[in-house]
């Protein structure tokens, strides 16, 4: 190895190290799987490292309000980022929709859910699990679908609520509830339903499940945080996001 090559290598290595930063990200639980993949690609492509914390958006809000050191929030809704911005806890003008969630009516068993959701009109199921509409946008969307279909009378007595969409998935997955409104991202890989039967709810039956990202005050001068927000809007991230059943 010549000296010059060595110096060039050392120089580039040193340069990369000097630029490589770290960003702590609060990520909505429903976005766990795609974000892990995106973070890996992000680290490979930019050298920056993303530390991910997964949880409920409402909990993150409370933590951020009380000084949690997150630089970026990937929320499960569009209201929380807007609220943080209004309260001066996020940087104005950095909000954008990184993914739009899709709702699916799902059963662990094959041939239970038809492709129009007509099963909701039958009386042939024991429980219908939804996310708590007070806490989770997916729960609000589920209630909207139930009302739009006009089945609230027969369906509401059969409702059980998960505190998050993750718990709702658990209820259906353990078959304690035969049916449930879950996130399409939870039950599909590469555009295919992995198990059981499902109806992918048309988006015109509920308010769009917009999930917004925002730069928080703690990330204002963090180059890695800025880079991550840009990366989320790039083609690599977009391909990963859609492969998990999200719309853009």
């Amino acid at each position, binding site marked *: 190895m010549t000296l010059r090559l060595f110096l060039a290598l050392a120089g580039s290595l040193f340069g990369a190290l000097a630029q490589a930063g770290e960003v702590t990200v609060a990520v909505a639980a429903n976005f766990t799987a795609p974000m892990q993949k995106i973070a890996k690609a992000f680290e490979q492509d930019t050298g920056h490292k993303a530390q991910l914390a997964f949880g409920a958006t409402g909990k993150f809000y409370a933590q951020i309000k009380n000084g949690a050191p997150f630089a970026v929030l990937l929320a499960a809704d569009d209201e929380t980022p807007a609220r943080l911005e209004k309260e001066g806890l996020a940087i104005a003008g950095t909000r954008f929709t990184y993914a739009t969630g899709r709702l699916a009516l799902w059963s662990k068993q094959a041939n239970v859910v038809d492709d129009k959701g007509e099963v909701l009109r039958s009386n042939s199921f024991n429980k219908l699990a939804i996310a708590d509409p007070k806490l989770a946008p997916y729960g609000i969307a589920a209630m909207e679908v139930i009302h739009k279909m006009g089945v609230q009378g027969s369906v509401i007595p059969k409702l059980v609520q998960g505190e998050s969409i993750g718990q709702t998935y658990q209820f259906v997955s353990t078959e*304690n509830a035969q049916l449930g409104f879950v996130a399409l991202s939870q039950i599909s890989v590469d555009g295919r339903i992995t198990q059981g039967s499902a109806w992918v709810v048309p988006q015109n039956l509920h308010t769009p499940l917009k999930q917004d990202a925002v730069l928080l005050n703690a990330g204002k001068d963090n180059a890695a945080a800025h880079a991550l927000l840009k990366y989320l809007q790039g083609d690599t991230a977009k391909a990963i996001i859609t492969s998990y059943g999200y719309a853009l």
Partner: protein
Amino acid sequence: MNLSAEDFQAIALTLQLASVTTVLLLLLATPVAWWLAHTRSAWRAPVASLVALPLVLPPTVLGFYLLVALGPNGPIGQFTQWAGWGTLAFSFWGLVLGSIVYSLPFAVQPLVNAFEAMGPRPMEVAATLRASKWDAFFTVAVPLAKPGFVMAAMLSFAHTVGEFGVVLMIGGNIPDKTRVVSTQIYGHVEAMAYSQAHGLAGVMLVFSFVVLLGLSWFNRRTTRHQKVGA
């Protein structure tokens, strides 16, 4: 303090759950504790450890196992379906079952201590007086172990009131059926309704403090009483 009708509903349900659980737990824990206090079997240590497990296991683990076990393909679910009760998740009796598991050590341990503190003498004396085993148990052992029973009941009740993780995982948050105080508070906090959360959380805080205060008062009184009696 602004408690809503739903908050009061949750309080009533919580008290009902804690009462039913406490009664059933005392019935279940007494024979277990008696056996643990007297046996020389090699099974003593494994059984004692099993009973103590809920002390150290996170409620999420208990809740997860219960959810799977209660489901239509789980062992408990298979049994309850066979018995014609359907599945127990998302029902009051499902919560009772979960609470019994969760609070078991809090009922068993004080009873074991009380039975052990009694020593073998009282039962031996009762036997020489020709009392049958059952007779001796109810007329000699139970009165002597009364402080243990009171302690077990108070701890089981308070611990069930404070239960959260297990209920969250097997309850399904149904008003008047499975929405207890702790999950109601959680809902308020997550929905950012902090003032409502404060009301209920304050009630919980005062209740727990009063129970602990009562326990320590009761403890002091019984030890002093026993000293005087001796």
